[in-house]
């Protein structure tokens, strides 16, 4: 379990995060949702260990990891632009970490993962020949072979479109359930957060505005910001889609 206690982060005089208290259970998918500048990437960096908090503590499975180095934490990350090694093939990227830690995954486990991610046909391709969805799956696979106890996903779907977005969404959920993996997703898209997560942490100007399940957020928005940013935005989207459906059905009937 990951536990954040009174986390504060300041950059010189600017407070980016203030008194963040959060508990993430093992196997849970949690989304950190917020607008640009709300502090979500800073929170991700603090969990990963790229930044140290100005105040408060971070615990993982009962161990204080506030000052533990990034590489010593049992976490891994998939960056928004995937950060794949451009001079290696898909397979070489996927198995990159096994050169250092062979014990992480067996050959059979790697093959199973490749199958799960539908990457069999693309293993020998250089990175620039892969589509965005394929790159996303390679990046995901590269972290999964290392068997992290917590996986951080930085805007995982922002570069994807339509059908690929939906299939990656399903893939992430499938992997999380199958491997009982704790996943923290950073996103600015309410729809993404609501459809993927067990729990959503809504950040507003460095503070937690609400932390609840998607259903609770939609039914009981805790403040005006959550209502405006999530509920109303999705309601407008829903209305627009409904209108298009109704119009198309009328036309089809006439």
């Amino acid at each position, binding site marked *: 379990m990951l536990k954040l206690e009174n986390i504060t982060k300041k950059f010189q005089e600017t407070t980016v995060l203030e008194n963040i208290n959060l508990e993430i259970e093992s196997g849970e998918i949690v989304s950190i949702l917020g607008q640009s500048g709300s502090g979500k990437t800073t929170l991700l960096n603090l969990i990963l260990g790229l*930044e140290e908090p100005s105040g408060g503590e971070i615990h993982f499975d009962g161990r204080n990891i506030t000052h533990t180095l990034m*590489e010593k934490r049992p976490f891994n*990350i998939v*960056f*928004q*632009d995937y*950060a794949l090694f*451009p001079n290696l093939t898909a397979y070489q990227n996927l198995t990159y*970490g096994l050169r250092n830690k062979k014990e992480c995954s067996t050959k059979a486990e790697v093959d199973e993962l490749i199958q799960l991610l539908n990457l069999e046909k693309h293993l020998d391709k250089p990175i620039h020949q892969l589509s965005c969805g394929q790159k996303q799956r390679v990046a995901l696979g590269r*972290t999964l072979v290392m068997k992290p106890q917590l996986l951080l996903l930085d805007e995982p779907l922002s570069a994807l479109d339509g059908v690929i977005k939906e299939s990656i969404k399903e893939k992430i959920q499938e992997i999380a359930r199958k491997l009982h993996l704790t996943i923290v997703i950073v996103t600015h898209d309410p729809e993404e957060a609501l459809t993927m997560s067990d729990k959503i942490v809504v950040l507003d100007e460095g503070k937690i505005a609400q932390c609840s399940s998607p259903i609770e957020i939609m039914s009981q928005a805790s403040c005006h910001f959550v209502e405006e940013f999530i509920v109303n935005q999705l309601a407008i989207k829903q209305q627009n889609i409904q209108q298009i459906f109704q119009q198309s059905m009328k036309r089809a009937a006439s």
Partner: protein
Amino acid sequence: MRVEFSLKKMISWIVLAYPIVQIILTAFSQTDGGSLHIFNQNWRISFGNSLKYSLAATSCSTILGFFLAYGNNFTRINRRFLKVNESILHFPMLLPTITYGFVLIYAFGKQGLWSKVFQQELFHIYGSIGILLGFIIYTLPPIFILINNSMKYLDTQLFIVSRLMGDSWYRSLYKTILNPLTRVLAVAFLQGFFMSFTDFGIPSAVGGQTPFITTLLYEGFMGTIPNFQFGSLVALTMLLPSIISILVLNHLQKKVVRYERPRQAVIKKNAVRDWCFRLLFISLSLFILGVFAVLIIIPMVTNWPYELTPTFNNFARFIQDDSLILTLKNSLLMALLTAGFGTVIAYLAAILTSRERKVHKLNQVIDSIATITNSIPGMVLGVAYLLLFSGSQLHNTLLILVIVTIVHYFSTPYQMAKEAL
């Protein structure tokens, strides 16, 4: 065996290999009129000195340039501090190399500023130390600019990924920073090497009794008894290193890493690292300021080092001298025209070679020209243009100076633009 004749091989043969074969044939031929024994002891010592000092100084400059660029990009040092230091480090580029030699003498020579301040000579400026210092000051700014420029476009998220994948810090540094920079480091090194190898100003000012290939060349072209034939042969032997450099650069071209969307990751807090780099920047900036301070102090005293009363008379005399003002105007006009046209040409060439894949042969020619022109001393290029345009309408005009200077300095802006595109 299939023999491939590419345009590049032909150019390499015509421009480089053929003249060199001719030189070798000339050098070993024994005619009655007395052959030009180009590979005599004098040439061997001069060539060896140029090679030795250029390699040593450029190695130092490349290492320093890399650390400075690293400090500039991968630390949390205040941006304003870095900007000020960067400007100081660029400053020597604004002056001709012969000035470096003289400022070194005025700073560290027997009557130099710092010898007076410390009441003793800190080191003997004529010979090894003077030449090395001069070459380092000369080559560090362009080397630093080249490396710094490329380092800005590295995908630093890869360093984090590499660390998370279990690579050690050194391996991560190698895989994600040094390896993608291999070509630019080689380009910077070769650039610095040729700058030193073909420089005449520094060896002539602080070289002392140490002969260099460029001083030998000067004797050939402009010595008391000029010998154009010998001078030309010396110049051609100076092309030897450029053959090796073309081969190295072509080999490294295969290693170029092109990022789709390079991203800058958060730089971790590390006070010790930041202080080490601060000290490096401060000490280098202070050294450069210390050396070039004499340029500001000496014109403001009556007669350095004998009469140190402050005066503006030297400036007044300069302003009143019409011939000096005319010289200044001519230099400014030539520099402006060279910079204007040169930038456009270098940038267009870089766009062509880095973005346009269809004209592969032409790109190879441009690359070869950039390497070859960089390795030809300015003096040789000047004489070559003089002979080439002799009798034409361009002879004795400002335009010929602009053309030859653009050709001479084409390499650095071209390489910089190419690495960034």
